């Protein structure tokens, strides 16, 4: 079913070119690109040790594969050929195939990001299950050598951070909902956005396949100087992260520009939805810090290939650690800011209550963004000189003040509300509970004397899983249930939704509360084998972890079922006021027939509050927009 187009336009549009599915073509072209560039590298820089594939060749080949992949998926048809004067082919606008092709519609791109994130969440989650299976025994069982285990840890962390935690709610929900929420028909740079999403699969594949090049044992942080002498797979860790961060950078630029320039009439900064504020602050963080880590990773890669002696023992080993965490701590706020924004997006709707202290909630997001670049070295208290400990612990403590503003707004909104305890409400409240534990355990880690014991133990692992799974993943699930009627016009089963929520909540806490105790009992990180006295505790932690994995499976199956087969619901089942609910579900290709006009706050409830949205009659708007 092609989208009907005006008659004159239809004639000038050529038929689609791709003779076979773009994904298959992209794989083929990527393979060709790899072989060609690796061959050139082998010819220019022959290695006496290796007949064909060298470190240089595998890097050059990767860039060849990247170019081939992006051209094959649509870059050639939609960007290169039009540049040479050929007409731009039509983009598929209906059917399931459009999700496996180059797309311009921000909703299709958003779902592509969501699909990639969810798939990677499953893969990296299965790796976590394998790790927990290993840790049921104090001796090697599943992973026969520690490097197998360490490589699994590294891939789990890298995929979860760069493909799930920083992508699902930004590239996924952000791309899908920000244009709808601010009342526009498209994003600012749809062409770049259509390409950027295809950097995710190649990034994920690069990281997943990296052990083929040589196992690496550094974990997701790639600490130097271990990285300098570690396996060559690290090259693909650097490059995979480079692809994924480039994707996130394009999303950030696109959504920032969209929010700045594409807001509908009347959408002032004071009326901008909280989720859009969250995405804006996250995107600014991404624009500031992603280039920094990309530069660091490129230097790390060159250091390994050349070597440049930047970060290995002949250079400044700690230099890499500082550069990594300079990005690495803002990264965790990139993860959690959309979650904090989602809480205060959902609670007013479910509580039929005006958002409490909205300016404070927004300021909280902005100040977290500003402070997040000043705390990084608290990851390195055991490495730094004494004089650095006081300032970094100071800023670390202080950042909990603006983070607390999200709680301030949420609690003020809950008070005296008429709270509908639906699955999204439940998940938001659970997320608040979990993130609270993540934050309070941060209090202990920010305390330097205690940190010198807790650092690099399972206490830290528990802490950041509480913030990332407990904060972000629970909020992501809340958002999925909340917006499910929007995605598909169908809804979920309240029974299965609540059961799934309670299931993951109990299993999650049973798993990760144990991590704190394990850490206090002397369980350190990155070990596949550990002293025997820790085995009983680890055993039960693993059992809980398997329940957690099953719980996520139940929720994913339920959401997919509801998406396809769930009962149909009315257009705005929650009676929400924000703009994404003022159009049909699922939204039409161009979002709004007539662009809505905002005349009031989306977050004000109560008697005699006028509707914040006015839909102008068709004549009032410029035709052809």
């Amino acid at each position, binding site marked *: 079913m092609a989208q009907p187009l005006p008659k004159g336009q239809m004639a000038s549009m050529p038929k689609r070119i791709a003779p076979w599915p773009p994904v298959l073509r992209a794989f083929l072209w990527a393979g060709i690109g790899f072989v060609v560039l690796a061959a050139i590298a082998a010819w220019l820089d022959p290695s006496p040790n290796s007949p064909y594939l060298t470190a240089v060749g595998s890097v050059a080949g990767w860039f060849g594969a990247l170019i081939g992949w992006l051209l094959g998926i649509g870059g050639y048809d939609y960007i290169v050929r039009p540049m040479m004067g050929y007409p731009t082919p039509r983009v598929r606008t209906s059917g399931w195939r459009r999700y496996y092709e180059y797309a311009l519609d921000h909703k299709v791109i958003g779902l592509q990001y969501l699909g990639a994130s969810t798939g990677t969440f499953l893969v990296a989650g299965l790796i976590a299950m394998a790790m927990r299976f290993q840790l049921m025994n104090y001796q090697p069982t599943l992973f026969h050598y520690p490097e197998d285990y360490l490589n699994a840890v590294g891939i789990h962390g890298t995929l979860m951070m760069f493909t799930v935690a920083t992508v699902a709610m930004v590239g996924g929900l952000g791309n899908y909902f920000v244009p709808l929420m601010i009342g526009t028909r498209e994003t600012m740079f749809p062409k770049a956005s259509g390409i950027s999403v295809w950097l995710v699969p190649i990034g994920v594949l690069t990281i997943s396949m990296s052990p083929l090049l040589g196992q690496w044992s550094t974990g997701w942080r790639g600490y130097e100087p271990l990285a300098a002498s570690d396996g060559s797979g690290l090259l693909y860790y650097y490059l995979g992260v480079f692809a994924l961060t480039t994707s996130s950078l394009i999303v950030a630029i696109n959504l920032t520009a969209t929010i700045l320039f594409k807001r509908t009439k009347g959408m002032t900064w004071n009326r901008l939805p909280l989720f859009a504020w969250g995405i804006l602050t996250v995107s600014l963080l991404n624009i500031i810090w992603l280039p920094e880590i990309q530069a660091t990773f490129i230097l790390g890669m060159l250091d390994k290939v050349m070597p440049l002696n930047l970060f290995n023992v002949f250079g400044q080993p700690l230099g890499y650690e500082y550069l990594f965490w300079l990005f690495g701590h803002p990264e965790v706020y990139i993860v959690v800011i959309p979650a904090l924004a989602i809480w205060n997006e959902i609670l007013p709707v479910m509580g039929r209550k005006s958002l409490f202290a909205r300016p404070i909630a927004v300021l909280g997001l902005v100040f977290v963004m500003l402070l997040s670049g000043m705390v990084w070295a608290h990851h390195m208290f055991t490495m730094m000189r004494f004089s650095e400990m006081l300032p970094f612990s100071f800023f670390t403590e202080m950042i909990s003040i603006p983070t607390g503003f999200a709680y301030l707004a949420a609690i003020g909104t809950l008070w005296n509300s008429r709270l509908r305890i639906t699955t999204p409400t439940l998940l938001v409240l659970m997320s608040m509970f979990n993130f609270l534990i993540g934050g309070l355990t941060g209090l202990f880690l920010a305390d330097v004397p205690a940190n010198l014991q807790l650092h690099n133990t399972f206490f830290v692992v528990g802490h950041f899983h509480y913030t990332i799974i407990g904060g972000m993943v629970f909020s992501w699930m809340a958002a999925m249930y909340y917006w499910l009627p929007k995605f598909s016009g169908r809804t979920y089963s309240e029974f299965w939704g609540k059961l799934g929520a309670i299931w993951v909540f109990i299993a999650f806490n049973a798993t990760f509360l144990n991590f704190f105790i394990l850490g206090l009992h002397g369980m*350190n990180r990155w070990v596949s084998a550990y002293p025997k006295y820790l085995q009983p505790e680890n055993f039960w932690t693993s059992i809980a972890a398997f329940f957690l994995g099953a719980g996520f499976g139940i929720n994913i199956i339920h959401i997919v079922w509801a998406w396809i087969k769930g009962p149909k619901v009315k257009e705005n089942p929650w009676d929400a006021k924000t703009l994404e609910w003022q159009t049909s579900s699922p939204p039409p290709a161009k979002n709004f027939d007539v662009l809505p006009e905002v005349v009031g706050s989306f977050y004000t409830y109560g008697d005699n509050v006028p509707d914040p949205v006015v839909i102008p009659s068709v004549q009032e708007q410029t035709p052809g927009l």
Partner: protein
Amino acid sequence: MGSVLVFGLLWVVISLLGEWGATTWINSAPDGTGPYFGTASNLGVIGAHAFDFLVWVAVPIFVFVVLMIIFAMIKFRAKRGEKVIDAPKQTRNNKVFVGSWILISILVNLLVWLHPNASGLEQVFAAQLPANNPNPLVVDVTARQWEWIFSYPQYNITQSLNANGQDTLYLPVDRPVKFVLRSYDPFHTYDTAIDVIHGFWIPAFGVKYDVIPGETRVIYITATKLISTEQNPMARVQCSEVCGPGHPYMEANLHVVTGLAFAKWAKQQASRS
């Protein structure tokens, strides 16, 4: 207003109960240092006191938020099947609540930064001054992939080993120990080009410090309890920074013994090496 009173009362009562529980938990440890477990050294005790104080700070905050979540789910719940109507009271701001929240959160954060953080650090720094560590036992700690090597230059021990030939750390109780953390040992050949960061951690001592290639760092620790790996597995030297495939196995046994027993052991070792 009624809800505020009920909530406030519940918060105070449950917080007090929580504090009582936390105190009981902390005092339940044999030495009254709570769930921190790593208190067999002077530095560990500082960390443990910080940890315990933070437990007391965290309890009322935790109770406030969790109680609020539960309270809202019970008190402000819309009844099932009820018509969806807006909440009757639409408070969009409350200067007293917002103002006191911001003020209290700033004060609490300043407090925990000053105490136990800055005050604890002051003790840690003081404990690192050579003047405060008279007559220290010098232990050269060499970390390499994947072995801890301990040498005692004052006792002419180049590498302390147990009967099985494993590296082992013997320390006298209540005597300051000057650990010289380094990644190169003149008595053992080692390719410095592949050197990596290790973490010198004794869980029972409640403290760790990293060994950085190319740097020599000094940390003073005084062991305060007679412990050994055999009776308490927390008493071990463990690498705490991922250092490659051998990382999980980079550990060594620890014995904290009396001064007399240490002198005897040192004499024995010196005669061997």
